[in-house]
């Protein structure tokens, strides 16, 4: 896709192709013909595909490096520990990579041939990949689909919400660390969720305090100078699901590709994770029974 002007009204806008900003844009004729304005047929295809997925959770943060992927992986491990959760394969399509019998993963990482390969793509190509991940992966019948996202509020986030618009996302879990530099970005992410009408299951405050293994004193390495996630959640009226302290074993487990929850079951961080996972399960239990009442 060629460069579009900065004031591009958007391909689905009523002004697409006819606004002043469109003059000289290489896609002008395409937009003016109305071809770009219709809804993407993939959205309906994805809705069909997602019928076998009971619950869809987005893990978001405005901020990078707060622990989205770490949390997503451990949420998945935690939920998969319930052996009643089964996975059934059916039909064809891309097969996820199975970590456990009932825990499958899909990632662009599997499509790269070398650890040095860089995915240097602009927005449209990334959007195409995300569409494929949603439409062409054969998850089979699963209880939970956890979608880990990159930091920010851009193409990936807009696309995932757009492509899942017919399939319905149950909610978002937002990760932050305690300091203001993170909260600043996370407030924007909460604002994004409100804008796209994505329900917020709650916020997790990660890297919340560090207990020295030698003297057992606590240090606030990422200090909550403006009240941390607790204050932000109060101000914005979103639930705080819990706080997870720093534990050097978490990073080690991730680097080794193991579940921290089973490697270090006695860590205070493990207890925090389990409480948070329980609260997320409770959220689904509550909302399910609310839906039943309506029927």
């Amino acid at each position, binding site marked *: 896709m060629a460069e579009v002007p900065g004031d591009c009204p958007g391909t689905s806008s009523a002004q697409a192709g006819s606004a002043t900003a469109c003059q000289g844009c290489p896609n002008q004729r395409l937009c003016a013909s109305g071809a770009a304005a219709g809804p993407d047929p993939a959205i309906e295809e994805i809705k069909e595909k997602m019928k076998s997925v009971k619950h869809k959770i987005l893990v978001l943060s405005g901020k990078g490096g707060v622990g989205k992927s770490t949390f997503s992986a451990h949420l998945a491990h935690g939920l998969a520990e319930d052996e009643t959760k089964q996975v059934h394969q059916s039909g064809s399509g891309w097969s996820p990579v199975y970590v456990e019998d009932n825990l499958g993963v899909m990632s662009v990482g599997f499509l790269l041939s070398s650890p040095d390969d860089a995915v240097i793509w602009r927005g449209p190509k990334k959007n195409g990949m995300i569409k494929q991940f949603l439409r062409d992966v054969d998850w089979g019948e699963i209880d939970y689909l956890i979608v880990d996202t990159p930091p920010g509020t851009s193409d990936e986030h807009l696309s995932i919400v757009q492509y899942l618009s017919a399939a319905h996302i149950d909610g978002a879990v937002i990760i932050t660390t305690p300091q203001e530099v993170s909260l600043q970005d996370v*407030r924007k992410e909460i604002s994004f969720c409100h804008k796209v009408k994505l329900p917020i299951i709650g916020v997790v405050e990660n890297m919340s305090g560090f207990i020295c293994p030698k003297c057992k004193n606590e240090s606030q390495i990422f200090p909550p100078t403006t009240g941390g996630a607790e204050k932000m959640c109060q101000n914005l009226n979103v639930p705080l699901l819990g706080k997870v302290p720093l534990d050097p074993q978490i990073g080690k487990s991730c680097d080794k590709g193991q579940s921290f929850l089973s490697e270090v079951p006695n860590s205070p961080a493990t207890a925090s994770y389990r409480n948070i996972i329980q609260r997320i399960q409770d959220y689904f239990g509550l909302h399910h029974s609310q839906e039943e009442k309506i029927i």
Partner: protein
Amino acid sequence: RGNLARVQHILLVLSGKGGVGKSTISTELALALRHTGKKVGILDVDLCGPSIPRMLKVQDRDVHQCDSGWVPVFVDQDKSISLMSIGFLLEKPDDAVVWRGPKKNALIKQFISDVAWGELDFLIVDTPPGTSDEHISTVEALRPYKPFGAVLVTTPQAVSVGDVRRELTFCKKTGLRVLGIIENMSGFVCPHCLECTNIFSKGGGEELAKHSGVPFLGCVPLDPQLTQSLEEGRDFIQEFPKSSAFPALASIAQQILDGTS
């Protein structure tokens, strides 16, 4: 050659990984260079998560226009550090910039050509994590001005290093010289008992530098004084020269200065 004509050296701060300390290092590097008498500009091209205005306590300032474009915000009375960030253009600090690639690219081009920096020894360009629109556009727009190079920031553990390897590939593919790798958040010294714990592991950044044949600029430890300074927008280099992170940051600045002579 326009607004970048009197900028001596353009330096990019990159990482494949989020949250490793790009903005922190960009800010500290700017402060350290200022303390050696240099004039420094910072261009914050992280449009979704602009962190630098708050780190320099200028988050409430406005930008003004002049004949040559936007006037950057001066952080100090001496006008030795100037800053441009989308943070200054937002009506409310919690406003989310929810833009797709093309719109981000257009603003980045403007940030690169339409900010009236004047005379600078260094322009430090802070980036968001990854290898996408912002990075491609920034490097393309800066190409005519021959950037001095890029500093790559990682934390020690494999999960970060794994992403930064890909950033090295980005630099190779786009012809951007890699000045070196910084291993940030490398160890934490407990203020109570002085025991050092490697919370995010240790050594991954140094190993990556060796493996890839690029210079290793040093390890910067986790330092709550540093974090506190940035949260409150204070000059860490001036206030805490006895802290554990100071020698590492000063050394990195010196290595960059040495590279320019």
